[in-house]
């Protein structure tokens, strides 16, 4: 029954083909189930679609600022539910819910009455700083908050205007209550759904002409509103890219070259593989072979059976923008090389005179720290459906965090005009930075080529093994630290030279005249009052493909810095918590955070101490200031059978102001899990130019048995709104590492901890 309803709904959505967004929008068609999320998603609704048409004339008249044209975002339907097209993709971070909390607040419509879908490509949706669209950098809510409030308020104004006309009263005599315009004087009440047809053809009021609700009267913003997608995700109804199906679709599986850059030489057994059950065709792709079948399982088995002689990379790269993986590359050797790379690096942050301070310091401490390559390891393996349409357009369904970027890239690859490329962005089965445009890291070029070669729509699914072979990674770094202490043991100078390649320069290209901030963030931007500082980078190009990973540079740099800070505290005879307090005494915002996390944990207690259950434990403290928010975390650990157990993580976060505290708490849990996973067990190891791990067996991610209790507290300082999805992560690994160092007396200078041997 539900599927039938969904089909009907999908048919109704075809009116969107007329949506004047500057790009054709074929959101869906019969037989394709798009995951729309919300309590109203199952409702049978007929006869809407009028509202959006009116915008066309207006669109032609003038260029519209992104995020202002109400009908591009909002459909209010006759049954008084609303459909919202989100510029940001939902991947677990709760952004669909946050968006309708904000819009609903100003529109005066309960978030529960919305369904939310990812918006198609189009200039209306470039709402990040009013000029671009990505879901990442923990930027969604904080960069679009004002815009979305105004959008909701504009829609409300339009509804009021329509009601005023209908009732023949002045708009200022009308008020709203959730979902209704109310005329108090006459007691009349008109549902938004009844007004939508009139309202949506009205001109959108100028954004600065609308009045916003007084934050003191917020009903949904700032409240733990339930997420819209929870039920569907609990009953298997959420639809991800890998679940999508279009009529006439074939399935494909690929086998990638063992090292990036190699190409298909000879295939020894192509004829016998073609003869395998279910095999329709065998294809040679750049750096891969593919088998197409009616069933993915047949394609997968057949493609694994292909015996390919892979040819070494020649002078001309097999794909643009890739790095050729050397046959002898090993991460162990590369870590060694980074640590010993000569030079002082390029300044990223400089304060005072570090050199002079070291010369006069009582004690100088030096140490080299390491971070490791990491996989995203999102649970949904990459997939893409490509379909060439009779009208010359191309539809592509794929997990992505930046539809317009993929659209432009696909246009370039196919020679089609961008307006003929429809990128659809389904729900993400986790992302953590995985679904940006990284060369050779996504299946869409393969799906497009296969659709072209077979003349049918094709869905490519990568196995987990093929994914781990092509997943671009969080960079690894070696950082040479030097700290100077005065006679009192206080840090007076700190130098950190990171030998690494930042993810941004790794993806977009290194510019020797610029510094990639994502390489050093977390070494830079620290608030501790150390008067003489020098943070620098020595650029070393990686032979691997690099990527953003949840909390980007901070994901490693705060571990590196905060662990070394503890090392300095130890050398100076200071308690690490007290030292941080002293170094932040002129910074009330961070002092408050530090105090709060101390209180949350029942008062700072470093240990080692014996817990009630008789285990020896210790606690570590660390702080981070990523993505416009600030955090402080305390972790409590013990060692059991040589393995680190993280019992508790207390984390305080100050994101300035918030939209949904329940989602923030969930994100702190989630970020803590990833942080603990990184510091305890994760490392992508390469030997002989190939990843050792091709699945979760050899690249374990945090299992439930190793998840700590997480205690989160939000502090709303009222400062500028910061991010939420990523900021919870960076303070966790150093808090754990510092606790372990305290407990074991052995200074932890590299992740993951699983490479150390600890005595219980």
């Amino acid at each position, binding site marked *: 029954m539900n599927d039938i309803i969904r089909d009907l709904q999908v048919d109704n959505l075809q009116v969107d083909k007329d949506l004047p967004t500057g790009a054709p929008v074929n959101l869906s068609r019969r037989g394709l189930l798009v995951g729309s999320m919300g309590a109203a998603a199952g409702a049978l609704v007929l006869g809407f679609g009028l509202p959006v048409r009116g915008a066309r004339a207006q669109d032609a008249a003038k260029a519209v600022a992104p995020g202002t044209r109400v009908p591009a975002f909002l459909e209010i339907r006759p049954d008084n539910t609303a459909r919202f097209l989100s510029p940001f993709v939902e*991947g*677990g*971070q*709760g952004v669909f819910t946050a968006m309708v909390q904000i819009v609903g607040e100003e529109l005066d419509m309960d978030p529960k009455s919305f369904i939310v879908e990812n918006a198609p490509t189009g200039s209306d949706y470039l709402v990040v700083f009013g000029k671009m669209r990505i879901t990442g950098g923990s930027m969604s809510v904080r960069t679009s908050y004002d815009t979305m409030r105004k959008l909701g308020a504009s829609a409300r104004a339009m509804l009021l205007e329509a009601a005023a006309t209908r009732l023949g009263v002045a708009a200022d005599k009308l008020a709203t209550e959730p979902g209704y315009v109310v005329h108090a004087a006459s007691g009349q009440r008109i549902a938004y759904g009844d007004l939508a047809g009139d309202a949506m053809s009205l001109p959108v009021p100028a954004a600065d002409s609308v009045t916003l609700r007084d934050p003191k009267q917020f009903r949904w913003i700032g409240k733990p509103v*339930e*997420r819209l*997608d*929870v*039920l*569907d*995700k*609990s*009953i*298997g*109804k*959420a*639809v*991800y890219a*890998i*679940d999508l*199906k279009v009529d006439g679709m074939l*399935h494909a599986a690929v086998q990638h070259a063992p090292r990036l850059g190699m190409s298909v030489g000879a295939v020894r057994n192509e004829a016998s593989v073609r003869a395998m*059950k279910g095999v329709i065709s065998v294809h040679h792709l750049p750096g891969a072979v593919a088998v197409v079948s009616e*069933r*993915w*399982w047949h394609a997968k088995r057949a493609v694994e059976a292909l015996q390919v002689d892979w040819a070494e990379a020649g002078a001309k790269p097999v794909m643009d923008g890739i790095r050729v993986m050397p046959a002898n590359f090993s991460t162990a050797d590369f870590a060694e090389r980074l640590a010993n790379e000569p030079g002082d690096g390029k300044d990223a942050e400089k304060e005072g005179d570090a050199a002079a301070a070291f010369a006069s310091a009582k004690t100088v401490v030096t140490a080299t720290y390491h971070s490791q390559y990491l996989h995203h*390891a*999102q*649970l*949904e*393996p990459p997939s893409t459906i490509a379909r060439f349409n009779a009208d010359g357009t191309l539809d592509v369904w794929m997990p992505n965090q930046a539809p317009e970027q993929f659209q432009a890239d696909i246009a370039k690859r196919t020679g089609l005009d961008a307006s003929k490329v429809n990128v659809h962005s389904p*729900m*993400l*089965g*986790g*992302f*953590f930075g995985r679904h940006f445009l990284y060369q050779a890291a996504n299946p869409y070029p393969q799906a497009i080529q296969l659709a072209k070669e077979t003349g049918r729509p094709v869905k490519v*699914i990568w*196995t*987990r093994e093929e994914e781990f072979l092509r997943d671009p990674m969080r960079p690894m770094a070696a950082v040479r630290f030097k700290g100077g202490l005065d006679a009192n043991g206080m840090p007076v100078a700190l130098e950190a030279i990171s030998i690494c390649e930042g993810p941004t320069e790794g993806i977009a290209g290194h510019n020797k005249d610029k510094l990639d901030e994502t390489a050093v963030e977390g070494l830079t931007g620290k608030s501790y009052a150390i008067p003489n500082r020098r943070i620098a980078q020595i650029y070393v190009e990686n032979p691997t493909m690099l990527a953003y990973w949840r909390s980007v540079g901070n994901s490693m740099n705060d571990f590196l810095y905060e662990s070394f800070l503890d090392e300095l505290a130890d050398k100076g005879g200071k308690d690490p918590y007290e030292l941080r307090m002293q170094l932040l005494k002129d910074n009330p915002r961070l002092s408050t955070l530090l105090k709060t996390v101390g209180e949350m944990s029942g008062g700072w207690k470093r240990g080692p101490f014996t817990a009630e259950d008789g285990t020896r434990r210790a606690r570590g403290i660390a702080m981070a200031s990523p993505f416009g928010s600030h955090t402080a975390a305390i972790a409590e650990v013990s060692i059991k059978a040589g393995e680190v157990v993280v019992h508790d993580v207390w984390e305080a976060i100050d994101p300035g102001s918030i939209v949904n505290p*329940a989602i923030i708490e*969930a994100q702190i*849990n*989630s*970020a*803590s*899990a*990833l942080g603990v*996973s990184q510091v305890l067990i994760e490392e992508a190891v390469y030997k002989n130019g190939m990843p050792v791990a091709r*699945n*979760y*067996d050899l690249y374990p*991610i*945090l*299992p*439930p*048995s190793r*998840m700590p*209790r*997480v205690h989160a507290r939000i502090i709303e300082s009222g400062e500028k709104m910061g991010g939420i999805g990523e900021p919870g992560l960076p303070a966790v690994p150093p808090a754990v590492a510092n606790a372990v160092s305290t407990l074991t007396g052995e200074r932890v200078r590299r992740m993951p901890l699983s490479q150390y041997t600890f005595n219980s």
Partner: protein
Amino acid sequence: MKLEINGQPYEVESDGDTPLLWVIRDELGMTGTKYGCGLAQCGACSVMVDGEIVRSCVTPLDSVANRSITTIEAIQNDAIGRKVVAAWVQHQVPQCGYCQSGQVMAATALLKQNDKPTEDDIAAAMVNLCRCGTYNAIKAAVQDLSGQKV
């Protein structure tokens, strides 16, 4: 081969060594059961066979002939399944949601065998991976269902 899924009989044509997962997803078009690793490592593909939890990515089709299979699509037809889903909603468990079909199946299978699982029982049964780290919410939801103080 004959299969019984969610109380319905099906005649499927896949080979006997085909993983049940791909029969369910591709041949029968029920996509609530997810592919994550294909190696019994993550549990996203969990379904119940005769009330016991199995990972369908490593369950050959011929091993479940004539047995009763329950997938997430029918979870709300089951009294315990309904309660599990309600607890999942109450505790707002899912984030990206990709592993949650399997998590809900695992919790339902546990509670069908043992309506008062201890903390250790829960730890032993709820072993599916979640990259979003919803483990504490999962634990709280199952503890809630087992009548324990959360």
